[in-house]
């Protein structure tokens, strides 16, 4: 264990170059990007579908990361924003006949508004109390979606079936592959916007609030405004992720958006490293693949195996994928020197 503890205590020294503390270097980013672009050309459609899942779940984890890692606010209610995004896309596509790509900005905008408004009462709460308030939101959402009053639009308990889009311009690729590249493009764009945001005046205001509210306020940061904005941004991105999810899965139903989803996203954030944006994708991969791996090890005890695996991750690398990245960086640094 001592080696691990050493790494944890050494971490601040590595973070001495704060430019990289939130993101990856250019070289690493290009390698990851190349892998993301090329892999689908060589794998089966089902794997491509899973990679799409990683991307949009990654976006949802990224959204939570901006809220928690950036502005220091907890949320167990991300599944509610995700559901609103998914339903907005599904309803616009199926009832209004809108193009699938155009439904995403609408889903994002509606969720931004929803998150911003939810952020107002949440201002009075912090820490575990805020987590509980958002938990209530997550618990309420599936039932709201089942309400008979909205049934004409939401399809009630049955949910809505969404048509899967074909590749445009007669591109010779499968629906899954097109959807993957479509999702990838949106994910990259939102990732870049998020990095820009966190490195800007607004992002610094978020982090100042996270670190010390009173000092932030004395520097002129409108704490209430930026806290609600963080909720809005997080909900907006989660909404886009939800929309993408609806299109990829071709189906939305109230019971896909329970508290379990919110907890999965939270788990993804912790495994990826709180406040480290590239970790969001790693966290998403964890919540999608590890339950399958656990099932492969033992069908009857998959939950228990998953628990053990999760426990191992948290015990060995408490700072998640970020910590692994830091160790790797140090190792490469040492190799270069010798």
């Amino acid at each position, binding site marked *: 264990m001592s080696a691990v503890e050493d790494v944890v205590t050494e971490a601040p020294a590595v973070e001495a170059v704060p430019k990289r503390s939130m993101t990856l270097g250019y070289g690493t980013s290009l390698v990851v990007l190349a892998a993301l672009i090329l892999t689908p050309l060589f794998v089966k459609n089902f794997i491509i579908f899973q990679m799409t899942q990683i991307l949009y779940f990654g976006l949802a984890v990224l959204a939570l990361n901006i809220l928690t890692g950036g502005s220091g606010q907890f949320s167990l209610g991300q599944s509610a924003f995700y559901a609103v995004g998914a339903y907005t896309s599904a309803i616009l596509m199926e009832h209004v006949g809108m193009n699938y790509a155009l439904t995403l900005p609408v889903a994002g905008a509606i969720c931004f508004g929803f998150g911003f408004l939810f952020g107002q009462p949440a201002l009075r709460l912090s820490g575990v109390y805020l987590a509980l308030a958002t938990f209530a939101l997550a618990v309420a959402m599936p039932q709201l979606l089942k309400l008979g009053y909205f049934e004409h639009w939401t399809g009630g308990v049955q949910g809505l079936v969404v048509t899967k889009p074909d590749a445009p311009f007669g591109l010779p690729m499968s629906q899954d592959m097109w959807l993957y590249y479509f999702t990838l493009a949106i994910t990259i764009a939102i990732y870049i*916007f998020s990095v820009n945001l966190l490195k800007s005046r607004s992002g610094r205001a978020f982090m100042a609030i996270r670190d010390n509210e009173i000092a932030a306020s004395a*520097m002129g940061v409108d704490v209430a405004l930026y806290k609600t904005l963080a909720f809005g941004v997080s909900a907006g991105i989660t909404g886009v992720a939800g929309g993408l999810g609806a299109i990829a899965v071709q189906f939305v139903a109230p019971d896909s958006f329970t508290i379990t989803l919110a907890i999965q996203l939270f788990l993804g954030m912790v495994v990826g490293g709180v406040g480290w944006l590239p970790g969001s994708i790693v966290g998403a991969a964890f919540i999608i693949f590890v339950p399958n791996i656990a099932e492969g090890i033992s069908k009857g005890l998959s939950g228990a195996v998953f628990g053990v695996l999760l426990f191992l991750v948290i015990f060995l690398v408490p700072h998640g994928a970020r910590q692994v990245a830091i160790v790797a960086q140090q190792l490469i640094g040492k190799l270069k020197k010798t």
Partner: protein
Amino acid sequence: MTQAQLAQGQYPLLAVRDVSVLFGGIIALNGVSFDLHQGQILGLIGPNGAGKTTLFNCLSRLYQPSTGDILMEGQSILTRPPHRIAEIGIGRTFQNVALFPNLSVLDNVRVGTHARTNSDIFSDSLKLPWVRRGEAELNKRVHEIVSYLDLDDVAHTVVSGLPFGTQKRVELARALAADPKILLLDEPAGGLNHEEVYVLGDLIRRIRDERKVTILLVEHHMGLVMSIADHVVALNFGRKLAEGTPAAVQSDPDVIKAYLGSKDQ
């Protein structure tokens, strides 16, 4: 303040007028008045519980006085929320250092410019040209201040790992980044050793002279106050005990009694 004074432009930079603060039945401040003039270093002294920090928190709008008023260049500041104090030129440091521990020195100082800059989350996310230009200008300014306070070597370091004395300098840099007219320093000498206190005294004077900042200093360390302040206000039990030059206040019998106790007690 009379109309005549206003017309002559004679009003002080900051005027504390008959300020009282009540916490339940406890009178933390009782009718305190004093003026702070342009270019002054004013030392606010008093034993523990005298009301120094309470007054300070009224100035940064964390507490609302029960009566009285605080005027900045003739305008009341009591209608402003706490986050709109920095923009009128009042900067502050905190008693036990209140930095943003997970941010680098540069980012801490950058947050200090928040009140002097503008942006919105959409332009920031898209990194629009005017955001880029703003950041470039801001960086120039931030680097200048970081050099001014001799923090170049640690500019990229996360502040939580820095020695206490250095953290205090970072806090000063952060406050100066907003280009304040008045700098409120809450016990800047606290936790510093003898030598560091004298270096700090020089630094405060240099900041006043070179950056044209008026300074209000709350301090326990008598040596520091007496060596750098032009004007001293002594508080005890929420009341103003004495006011004047450092020498006059130091020899005031009431002040001596408050600090050392008298024979009849």
